[in-house]
């Protein structure tokens, strides 16, 4: 389950990942635009179509099950890390909206787990390995295979961490389970990516992404640093959340406590708790007022958005 569906993540985790992914996407768009200029739109559009088409091809994994390529490292090696990140993000948005593959509330998490781990961190690993081992076709293929495999494991670990922090299961357990499942899923991903990059490097090495001559080391550093930065920011934010929110195991107990409180409240309608609540009429008024306020808020936001759009188009 590389794509996290709706209903698994808690509100704080969903919000944190959405905001982080949004900021990263804005930065990536800037980087890709500067690098590709007016070639950006057609290049990225066709790369998106290619990854979409490639993901439709299933290959056998084990015991009759089949999987498909994620392709983050492959697209980054051909089109560059920032372009690859944007392509993977576009693919994830289309999958969530059109095919209900991956949730809309989990979109931020899925973008970080799949697009950032694959195209940014994966490309950083690939670049570092080729810088160390040289860039013959075979070495590039091996570096890409290793990068694709490692980034798939990272995808699983990140998803496991997010699920754990959401209180779905104890963090250690979900982290271990997801990482080990992806250590298996990552094998075909690594093999296919490695063979494809090897074939490309042999036949048309000129088409593979070349870091700009002026900043040969700089871009590698930037990609690796960006990946590490995202991981660090996420780890920091999530650890704050984790210390504020109870740990998975305690969380379950509290949920159970909630359940008990709710049932005892129903069983004893004349308890002190009940007497403290306002009467039925008061509750009704509060509900009506609350809904009116909400309606006003949503309407105001909608109007502001429409006005901003009109201003932009006009």
């Amino acid at each position, binding site marked *: 389950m590389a*794509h996290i*569906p*709706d*209903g*698994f993540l808690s*509100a704080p985790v*969903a919000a944190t990942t959405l905001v982080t992914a949004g900021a990263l*996407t804005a930065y*990536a*768009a800037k980087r890709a635009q500067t690098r590709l200029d*007016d*070639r950006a*739109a*057609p*290049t990225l*559009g*066709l790369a*998106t*179509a*290619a990854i*979409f*088409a490639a993901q*439709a*091809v299933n290959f056998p994994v084990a015991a009759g099950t089949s999987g498909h390529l994620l392709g983050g490292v*492959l*697209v980054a090696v*051909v089109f560059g890390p920032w372009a690859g990140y*944007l392509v993977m993000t*576009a693919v994830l*948005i289309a999958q969530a909206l*059109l095919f209900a593959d*991956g*949730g*809309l*509330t*989990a979109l931020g998490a899925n973008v970080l787990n799949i697009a950032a781990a694959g195209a940014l961190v994966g490309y950083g690993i690939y670049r570092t390995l080729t810088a160390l081992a040289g860039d013959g076709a075979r070495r590039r293929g091996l570096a890409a295979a290793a990068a694709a495999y490692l980034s798939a494991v990272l995808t699983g670990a990140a998803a496991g961490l997010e699920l754990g922090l959401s209180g*779905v*299961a*104890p963090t250690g357990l979900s982290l271990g*389970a997801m990482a080990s499942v992806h250590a298996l899923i990552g094998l075909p991903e690594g*093999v*296919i990516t*490695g*063979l*494809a990059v*090897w*074939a*490309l490097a042999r*036949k048309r090495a000129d*088409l593979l992404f070349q870091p700009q001559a002026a900043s040969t080391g700089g871009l590698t550093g930037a990609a690796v640093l960006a990946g590490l930065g995202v991981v660090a920011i996420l780890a920091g934010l999530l650890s704050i959340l984790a210390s504020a929110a109870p740990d998975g195991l305690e969380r*379950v107990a509290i949920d*159970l406590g*909630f359940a008990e409180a*709710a049932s005892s409240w129903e069983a004893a309608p004349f308890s002190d708790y009940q007497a403290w609540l306002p009467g039925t009429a008061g509750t009704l008024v509060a509900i009506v007022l*609350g*809904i009116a306020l*909400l*309606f006003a808020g*949503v309407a105001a936001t*909608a109007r502001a958005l429409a006005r901003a759009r009109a201003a932009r188009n006009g």
Partner: protein
Amino acid sequence: MGFAHLDRYADRPSWLSRRTTPEQRLWIALGAAFAAGLMPPGAWRALAALALIVALGAWTARLPAGALARRVAHAIPFFLLPALALPLSVPGPAAVELGPLAFSEPGLTKAAEIVLRATLAVSAVTVVISVTRAADLLSALDALPLPRLVKSSLALGYRYVYVLNDELERTGRALRSRLGRAPVSRRWQARAVTLAHVLLRAHVRGSRIHAAMLSRGYRDGFPTLRPASTLSPFWTVAIVTLLAAVWLAGLIEVSI
């Protein structure tokens, strides 16, 4: 391959499609996914209310129940399988014991809750998206605060995915007919070469489109002839408010 099957119910007149534009429906889909997906654990009554709203929405969209069920069922394995692991992995008192397997009570509750939330979110999004054409939906994405490059990637990706998919199928067919009884390693290599080939084609096609765009005076973004809608956003605002209210009710339900 095509998106035609996605647009099968898009042109049916219905209460929902008459009163909302594709762009407004996108906001409703987002609202529903957030209300269902982020419903706090333990808010059973709010979840039930949300299920009622989604069912009502499916009715107003005039979607055949079978079609809706088929589309939702397609997404169910994605969340059912991981949810099924929870009763076995979340610690707690066992509710059911089957030989060596102990299904813990908190695990069962959690799994039921997650499956309910996920089913509701998927159903709501499926209802709203089913009555909207994929092309309209993509142009409605303009309203979202996404970088222009992501939007143009989605639009061009939608336009060219058929072209590249045909290429992939043709290459794949040619390879299969030549491979015969080739060993497994050879087959994997063939798969990889097919993928490399498609990426190459994407590269070449992209440069051709770029040249064509320049020769036609391309300057940032795609000009569209989308008529401005005069439809009032009243119903959209009402539906999103209702969804937000149910989500807040869920928050209140678990905190008292």
